[in-house]
């Protein structure tokens, strides 16, 4: 931590002196401190090779501190030139305050689909303020060695999924599902919002909730809770107190067979696990149904409206919108998938497997993220608690859904 900090300090000092020369130095604000070396060794050198007159400094802070730190830096006028954008409301608030520049006229934005841009647009879609960079895809990662040993194949339907779980449980050498409910968010993010889109038909259901034409108590929204409740017998002993790092370790140590996942786990898992891994999308309710995946926009890049080096920053931002950058970034950070509408070749086999679902399935995103978590009580937080309760068996699927609906309707007009 201190080391990163002194590095940061050093780079800021350097940035200050470099500005006197012919080169311009631009600074990127980000919460992706895990990716610092990737930026320093792969991405920035690739850019500086073609743009010798611009120096780029990647200055990340800790993910949990990022929003607060960025807000105070922007208010004080000390923020970097380029801002890594969180999806939806956090960045929208910055745009409304005039701290993020309007990028709607950038030609590179045409490289992105409307769904990809939705996370960084005003509600009416008229203004875009960040260049989409990456998304994460949800699904299940499995221990391929265990599957071979037990003679099971990746399930296509929910029935096959539970048949596989039953087989793994009977055999007894692996915990069937590596997930706990202690930290709550996995139950919602890797549970409910992972398998749910197959039931509420992805974007169709998500938009219907926003429009108010469907309710969270409708069968397609309650059914995923019912499926989730059936996971409990297949989770590890004492899963109620199992934390997120516990589940990660349990899986990478080879103690569990299936891990309800987000693609961001890929690089970590590949470093830790010494067995072969595969991935399958959320199993379908019935064979032959259309499949939907949660392809969640995760980060983008915007321009600090108060930047002193706007021209140089725009050069970098335009580069971020190209297929070259997408290929470089997607391969440097497997599991963070480019959002660009052009073919991008990803080398990592596990990441490639998950990316291929975009062809066979319809993408959507976590339904709580856009608009619906703006009020009090907060829908995202409520969903965490509800999903964990359903798995713990302390709340029935119907009661959980009814409570979420009540919470949402209490402040969201279209649902009243």
């Amino acid at each position, binding site marked *: 931590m201190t080391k990163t900090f002194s590095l940061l300090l050093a780079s800021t000092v350097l940035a200050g002196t470099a500005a006197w020369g012919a080169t311009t130095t631009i600074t990127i604000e980000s919460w992706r401190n895990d990716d610092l070396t990737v930026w320093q060794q792969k991405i920035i050198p690739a850019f500086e090779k073609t743009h010798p007159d611009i120096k780029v400094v990647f200055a990340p802070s800790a993910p949990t501190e990022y*929003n*607060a730190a960025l807000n105070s830096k922007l208010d004080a006028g000390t923020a970097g030139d380029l801002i890594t954008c969180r999806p*939806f*409301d*956090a960045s929208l*608030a910055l745009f409304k305050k005039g701290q993020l520049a309007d990028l709607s006229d950038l030609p590179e934005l045409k490289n992105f689909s409307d769904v990809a841009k939705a996370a960084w647009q005003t509600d009416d879609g008229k203004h875009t303020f960040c260049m989409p960079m990456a998304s994460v895809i949800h699904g299940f990662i499995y221990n391929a060695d265990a599957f071979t040993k037990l003679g099971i194949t990746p399930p296509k339907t929910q029935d096959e999924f539970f048949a596989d779980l039953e087989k793994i449980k009977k055999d007894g050498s692996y915990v069937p599902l590596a997930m*706990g*409910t*202690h*930290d*709550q*968010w996995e139950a919602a993010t890797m549970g409910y919002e992972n398998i749910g889109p197959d039931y509420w038909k992805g974007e169709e259901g998500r938009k219907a909730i926003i429009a108010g034409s469907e309710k969270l108590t409708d069968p397609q929204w309650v059914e995923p809770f019912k499926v989730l409740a059936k996971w409990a017998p297949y989770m*590890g*002993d*004492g*899963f*109620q*107190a*199992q*934390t997120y790092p*516990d589940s990660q*370790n*349990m899986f990478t140590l080879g103690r569990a067979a299936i891990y309800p996942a987000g693609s961001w786990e890929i690089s970590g898992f590949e470093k830790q696990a010494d067995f072969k891994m595969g991935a399958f999308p959320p199993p379908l309710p019935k064979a032959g149904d259309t499949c939907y995946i949660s392809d969640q926009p995760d980060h983008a890049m915007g321009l600090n409206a108060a930047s002193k080096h706007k021209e140089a920053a725009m050069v970098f931002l335009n580069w971020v919108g190209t297929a070259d950058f997408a290929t470089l970034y997607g391969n440097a950070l497997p599991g963070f998938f480019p959002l660009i509408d052009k073919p991008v070749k990803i080398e990592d086999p596990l990441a490639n497997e998950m990316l291929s679902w975009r062809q066979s399935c319809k993408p959507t995103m976590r339904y*709580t*993220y856009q608009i619906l*978590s*703006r009020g*009090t*009580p*907060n*829908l*995202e*937080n409520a969903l*965490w*608690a509800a999903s*964990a*309760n359903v798995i*713990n068996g*302390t*709340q029935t699927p119907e009661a959980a859904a009814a409570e979420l609906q009540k*919470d949402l309707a*209490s402040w969201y007009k279209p649902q009243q």
Partner: protein
Amino acid sequence: MAERRPVRWHIGVFLAPAVAVYTAVMIFPLFATLDLSLYRVVDKATHFVGLGNFATLFGDPHWSEHFWNALKNNTWFFLINMAVQNPIGIGLAALLSSPRLRFAAAYRTAIFVPTILSFVIVGFVWKLILSPLWGIAPDLLKAVGLRHFFAPWLGDPHYALTTIALISVWQFIGIPMMLIYAALLSIPDEVIEAAEMDGITGISQFWKIKLPLILPSIGIVSILTFVGNFNAFDLIYVAQGALAGPDYSTDILGTFLYRTFFGFQLQLGDPNMGATIATVMFAIILAGVCLYLFGIQRRLRRYQF
């Protein structure tokens, strides 16, 4: 002709640094918080709403439900601390002050050490000890044939809060022990000798002679426990996260304030409602302390030696 007393400048001069620092870091923020709770931001404009935020906190079922839940949990947290930590602390102090006990200094240090550990360490260590996957608690229970008693306590809405409260007791047992130990040591030998002359020894000596003499210290310990518990936040944040799960069963006023003030995940922070909760916490603690000061402390009999 009466001589005018000289103005005693030195009093002001000596007080000034402390008053200035205390005002800047304590009194001013306190009043700023009280002030903040009287406003509400609507469409980027700040409006004065008087006690409107308090009306929301107590009147709007979505707020009041969380508030009463947090207050109820906080009270339980305090009761467990009072009922377990302080009697055990007094008992340990009584044992430690026994002249026949060997290695008293070693015990005293060992029991006091957790108090100076950081909350983060305590939270993580206990989470690991109680982990159903890697923890030593299930194995230890197995060794004595009680494995079936083990449950994922931190993940069970019925037990999580009590478990956390007991962890807090483990951490802070050293404080009542030390304060009461000091009080016990300050009882003059003459009093004890006089008691012995009258034939009061052993346990009855503790109940009849020592306990009444250390009551003021017990009062101080109780009020410290009260203030500390109603301000608690760290241990629950570390062990259970800001959502204080499972199902808000470990949510206390501190975690409720944190989520409201700073926001959490997709929930944006609301400084005004946060300040409202902070003000209510202040009022609760103030009321508790006043009750103690005027209701109990004045009636305690003190003995001068």
